[in-house]
């Protein structure tokens, strides 16, 4: 167990060195989109809109934190892996070492979690400053951590199965971008038809948004959404293991 944790840290260590060297640009680029959404939807479109007692700004901030967790964790884990595997070929060094495949998957996902948490906390700090009614509870932080894990594992999975750098952006444009706008991040899903809901609840970001929003606004917590996030995480982890085992021993 100790050796496995040590191996996870070894895999993470390389990416932490990279992050330490490029932290300014890494953090800055991960904040651009969420901040633009915050300005455009929170202050622009959302001014004057409210959901019952909740103003739109309060409503949308947890959603933006969820999408920040998603995009940064996903790209943080997937993009470097994609480069290491297909361009640098340095990922082969991990596969040829005595480090277990489990540790490789967790280690590669860990950098996504670290980067996801950094950008999410930055947005959270801005969000709490703009809207002091937001509650940063242990449940909120736990939901945020689980969300980062889920999307980092998705990043690792995609980083392992794609065959070119173009595939990464194709996946981002076809899956991640629609998920950004449709998963209850900017609007409530409650008024949608049942069929639309069924589709949108099949997306992990929906559960991430709902969990974070409920925790932040002190609403009844959707435990099923948290459970769904665990389910997504498990599926992505198994997918990563299968992808690794397909090509390595």
């Amino acid at each position, binding site marked *: 167990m100790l*050796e496995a944790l040590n191996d996870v840290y*070894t895999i993470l260590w390389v990416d932490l060195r990279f992050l330490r060297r490029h932290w300014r640009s890494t953090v800055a680029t991960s904040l651009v989109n969420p901040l633009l959404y915050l300005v455009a939807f929170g202050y622009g479109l959302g001014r004057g809109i409210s959901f019952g007692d909740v103003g739109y700004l309060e409503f949308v901030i947890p959603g933006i934190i969820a999408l920040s967790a998603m995009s940064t964790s996903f790209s943080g884990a997937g993009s470097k892996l994609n480069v290491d595997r297909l361009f640098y*070929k340095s990922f*082969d060094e991990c*596969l*040829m*070492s005595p480090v277990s495949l489990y540790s490789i998957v967790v280690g590669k996902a860990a950098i996504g979690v670290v980067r996801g948490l950094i950008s999410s906390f930055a947005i959270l700090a801005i969000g709490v400053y703009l809207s002091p009614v937001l509650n940063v509870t242990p449940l909120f932080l736990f939901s945020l951590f689980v969300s980062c894990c889920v999307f980092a594992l998705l990043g690792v999975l995609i980083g392992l199965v794609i065959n070119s750098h173009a595939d990464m952006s194709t996946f981002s444009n076809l899956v991640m971008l629609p998920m950004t706008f449709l998963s209850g991040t900017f609007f409530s899903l409650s008024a949608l038809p049942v069929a639309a809901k069924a589709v949108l609840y099949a997306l992990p970001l929906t559960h991430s948004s709902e969990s974070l929003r409920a925790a932040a606004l002190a609403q009844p917590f959707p435990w099923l959404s948290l459970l769904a996030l665990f389910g997504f995480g498990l599926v992505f982890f198994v997918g990563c293991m299968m992808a690794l085992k397909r090509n390595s*021993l």
Partner: protein
Amino acid sequence: MNEFIITEKFTKCYGKVSAVQDLDLTVYAGEIFGFLGPNGAGKTTTIRVMTTLTKPTSGRVQIKGFDVVKDADKVKKLIGVVQQHLSLDRDLTVRENMEFHARLHHIGSSERKRRINELLTYVELNDFADRMVDTLSGGMKKRAAIVCSLIHEPEVLFLDEPTVGLDAQARRRLWDLVRRLNADGTTIFLTTHYIEEAEALCGRVGIMHHGQLIALDTPLELRKKLGAVTVETLVDNKETRYQYFADRAAATRYVQSLPPEAKTIIIRDSNLEDVFVEQTGQKVGDN
């Protein structure tokens, strides 16, 4: 000599294409073995299987008695690999790359530092240890890749086309390093499509062609089997014809028997390229 690498009826297919077919090969501990062949001959595929990066389709591959599939973890501790494409992390310095490799092989902190410093001295990279990999010359990058692969003191070092893209000086320096490593006890398995590299370094060579081993022996014996001396004759000012003879006397007799209009180009020692061309009808650099 002890058998170190053994393949028995080893075959690797990608779809319907056989990259390597029924390869029977033994590499002995302490030798420099050269795997020679053109691009696409199956050399890199063989190395990828031997280094646990991919599974054989059928047959058996063993390193020091350990099966590369069933005992992959044990095999990984025995091998060091320098891949054809530089597999260093270019976002790290040389020292950081070495540290990463040491960590991957569970080498403790103090031992890690000792080995890194020792190896940097060994390959004369001390002054460049804290430079980013991308700022190094091609030869330095290769030496950096080699020290990374040596950090866990492997018993066999796989070098896949180690001198591709290097200038003559860097190539010779790398050859010296390979010889030094071998003299210090490391078994070397080297693939190359440079004839002179195989002749300069390897005790034995195997020649691969279309996934099959078509010749296996010492460079000297392979040349002897073909004929130690080659006569190149220009025919009709268009085509060069090659004839092989056991010795210079026989070659000279042949040249003297040629009609006066024949233009003899050269009488020279045969080389591995002659062996390869005769075995395959193809030049080594051809695809």
